[in-house]
């Protein structure tokens, strides 16, 4: 375990994230231009989808349905547990609790990728259909949490001077037609249709450069996470604990579920990382638009400055170790 952790710390990916944090802390002007950030994320998501699609073209449907159901179950459970814990133990009001729960009910694509790379580097790659699961986990949690938030807020009369509520159809559309969803699902379909032969000529671009691009991307994520570190005091000790313990709980749950439905060690570990991760791309605008009473400082700081680094540095090796332990007969 210790060895694995050390290996994880010394990968260029983790170190680039650390460099981004350091850069921000010493108030460097280092920052990826906003448009470059968008472009790299388009690349990463499309590459992810393509690769998944090509591998899916080998997979039997019969392999996929049980993990898919497990993933959907996680999409329902994780926002509920998050909401309950935040309300009950954290004493957050309904809007804030729902806003945070929406983030922990969804998923971070970069955490997913990092987990996949980690499993690969341990010689136990995850299944080819994992990107399909990623798309399944992205949106349900957000909708469930927003629904709770809307219901509770109106009951609590918090929403007295709130703008007219947005039609649900609009929120659903926004997430399903969001950039990341379109790229992931679109990439899956393209990869599936072209198969390995069609994929060959674009492989040097989409696969050969993947880790390098991810290194640059994580550098910027480090800068962004560090920009929120100053808010750690504002969010308080409870949310810091939540941002570490909730992922461990969700991660462990998901690893067990993955194991139960017959996934490999690598697959269960990656599923664990997915469930443990908190969204910082899809969830924030959806929550801001629909639940403006929720304080963005809470959900952004928890998701980006606590849970993301925790998973990257320690969570992923942890879920992997647990999956391996389970896989070796517990």
């Amino acid at each position: 375990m210790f060895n694995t952790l050390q290996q994880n710390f010394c990968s260029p990916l983790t170190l680039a994230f650390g460099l981004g944090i350091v850069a921000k802390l010493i108030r460097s002007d280092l920052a990826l231009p906003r448009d470059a950030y968008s472009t790299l994320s388009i690349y990463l998501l499309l590459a992810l989808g393509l690769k998944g699609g090509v591998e899916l073209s080998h997979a039997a449907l019969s392999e996929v349905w049980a993990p898919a159901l497990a993933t959907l179950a996680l999409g329902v459970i994780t926002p509920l547990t998050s909401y309950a814990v935040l309300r009950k133990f954290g004493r957050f009001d309904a809007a804030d609790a729902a806003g945070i729960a929406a983030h922990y009910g969804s998923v971070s694509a970069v955490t997913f990728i990092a987990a996949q790379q980690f499993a690969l580097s341990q010689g136990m790659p995850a299944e080819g259909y994992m990107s399909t699961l990623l798309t399944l986990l992205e949106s349900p949690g957000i909708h469930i949490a927003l629904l709770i938030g809307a219901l509770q807020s109106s009951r609590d009369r918090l929403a007295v001077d709130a703008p007219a509520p947005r039609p649900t159809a609009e929120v659903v559309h926004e997430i399903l037609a969001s950039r990341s969803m379109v790229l992931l699902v679109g990439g899956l379909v393209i990869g599936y249709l072209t198969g390995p032969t069609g994929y060959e000529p674009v492989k040097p671009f989409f696969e050969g450069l993947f880790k390098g691009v991810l290194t640059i991307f994580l550098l910027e994520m480090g800068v962004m996470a560090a920009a929120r570190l100053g808010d750690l005091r504002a969010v308080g000790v409870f949310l810091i604990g939540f941002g570490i313990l909730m992922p461990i709980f969700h991660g462990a749950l998901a690893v067990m579920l993955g194991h139960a439905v017959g996934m490999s060690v690598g697959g269960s570990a990656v599923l664990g990382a997915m469930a443990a991760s908190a969204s910082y791309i899809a969830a924030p605008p959806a929550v801001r638009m629909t639940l403006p009473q929720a304080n963005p400082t809470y959900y952004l700081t928890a998701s980006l400055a606590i849970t993301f680094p925790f998973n990257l540095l320690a969570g992923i090796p942890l879920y992997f170790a647990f999956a391996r332990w389970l896989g070796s007969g517990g």
Partner: protein
Amino acid sequence: MHTTVLSLLTIIAEAVLKERLIAELMQAGATGYTVWDVEGDGSRRLRSGDAPGENIRLETITSFEVADKLLEKLAHNYFPHYAMIAYTSDVHVVRGDKYV
């Protein structure tokens, strides 16, 4: 050159509101708008979205009535929850009849 005095309404707000605010303008009777990305800071220090710190600056040239109606609506529906400022000034517009 003959010009008409009209109201130039400027809104600076969180980028996440872009589509919604444009829709509000058009609904209220504005005939056009101009918008671009800006950075800024104010009393709220609130930011959201995947590009933190990003705001938009949205302008419309319109009649004094429409501008006033819009200010009213913004103050009531958006100011309590979102980082946003809004102000108007008078401008002299060529072919002003196009905008009312």
